[in-house]
């Protein structure tokens, strides 16, 4: 099989949400000692990007997006041990992510974490209802580049601002980029809090993280 066709096959398996086939491709690539960097970038990453596009177009919905990211993740789990240099290469960023204290909504945050992992970032998902101090402590401990804070309620959004206030108080404002997510978050809110950005959906979050880390 031509290399290009092999890449296309991987991409299609992800778009078709065909886990069995996607894993077969990953195993074959490892067994035949192929260039795994190309396999991930031209095959799997292409597939997940297309899944994201289909979601933005309204062709795919939450279950397809989540499933696509999960399949991508299980394939990456297989490939990573064989690809130390790649792992170093793509792990250009570490993200600590949490839903803010008082807010138990975790779907959006989990989806963002899954998509970021699928794109090769190292993600520490602290869960939901996480105290402000804990988020900052974990970001320091994990040496994060990005702190992602989700709030789905207008009553809990104020916690997002408090994370930034705590970072300022600890003189850590320049150490981390802080990004927001959640249905009520707007650009005005991001500016008011002096945060580094927000995304309206999981695909937007990946783009945002990439653009912040490429700076």
């Amino acid at each position, binding site marked *: 099989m031509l290399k290009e066709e092999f890449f296309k096959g991987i991409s299609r398996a992800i778009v078709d949400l065909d886990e069995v086939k996607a894993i077969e491709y990953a195993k074959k690539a490892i067994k035949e000692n192929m260039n795994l960097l190309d396999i991930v970038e031209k095959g799997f990453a292409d597939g997940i990007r297309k899944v994201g596009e289909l979601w933005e177009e309204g062709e795919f*919905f*939450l*279950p*397809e997006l989540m499933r696509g990211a999960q399949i991508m993740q299980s394939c990456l789990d297989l490939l990573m041990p064989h690809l130390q240099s790649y792992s170093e290469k793509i792990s250009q960023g570490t993200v600590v992510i949490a839903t803010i204290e008082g807010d*138990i909504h975790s779907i959006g945050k989990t989806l963002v974490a899954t998509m970021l992992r699928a794109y090769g970032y190292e993600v520490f998902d602290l869960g939901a209802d996480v105290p402000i101090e804990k988020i900052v402590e974990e970001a320091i401990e994990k040496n994060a580049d990005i702190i992602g804070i989700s709030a789905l*309620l207008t009553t809990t959004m104020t916690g997002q601002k408090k994370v930034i206030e705590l970072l300022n108080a600890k003189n850590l404002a320049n150490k981390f980029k802080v990004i927001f997510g959640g249905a009520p978050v707007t650009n005005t809110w991001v500016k008011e809090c002096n945060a580094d950005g927000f995304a309206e959906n999981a695909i937007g979050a990946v783009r945002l993280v990439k653009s912040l880390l490429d700076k």
Partner: protein
Amino acid sequence: MLFQDWLKDDSKIVLFDGGFGTELIKRGLESGKIPDLLNIEQPYIISEIHKSYYDAGSDMCQTNTFGSTPLNLSRYNLENRIELIIEDALKNIKKVCPSGCLIVGDIGPTGEFRPPVGNASSDQWYSSFSTQTKLLEKEVDLWHIETISDLAEMLAAIKAVRDISKKPLIASITYKKTKRGFFTIMGDSLKKCIETLNNENIDVIGANCTLGSKDMLELLGIAKDFTDKPISIKPNAGQPIIKDNKTYYEQPVEDFANDIRKMIEIGAKIVGGCCGTSPKTIMTIRKIIDSI
């Protein structure tokens, strides 16, 4: 039964209540607190909000039990208090419900999704809705299952209610607008949802939350061709913005009410508001209904 009479009376437009959470925020609801717990902790505030809607002209208001299912309450470690929460919710609304008006048992989503998004099963949903329904049944006049974003969860809720209660039932799904039309976030189209609900033992098909009044008007224009059942509509007052750590909905009441007028003209039977609407919104709609 009053509600059934309203449904049969072609000249009657039923006025529902407006947003509850946003009214609580105005009164200083603490960050992250589940509104249902306030039935016990601050009952007078809950009664005051219900009363403000009845006073504004609502024909019926819903109990403050949106999140009162064992599945949802367990996320706040409150599942053991469900009986007291619902008992007090009923007391809070009963004491202010005027004669001639109705009490609607409010059933919201469990907050748990089915795989691959979450881990919930239909049996878990059914059992959770069942517990809530049993506790509300004796005191409510009718039901509103609302803000459901998964048709499968809606069907579990309908079955749970119908296995216990013969009272009228409104089933409202929440939709998002995509490039291909209106869908639930789980991917069920408006058409599929309504056609599925047509075959269920329910009295009214509804849509609420997520969409503002403009989009909801468009949705209604499409939905009415898919069903002969009466339709209930509760849109949001546009999208929220935050200023000085407070939430505002900027859509002027008159704009919202004007869209509601158009919805009534094209066939909405029950109208009201969701997030961001207030007693003032309901009062404005009351005037419109009375002038028709």
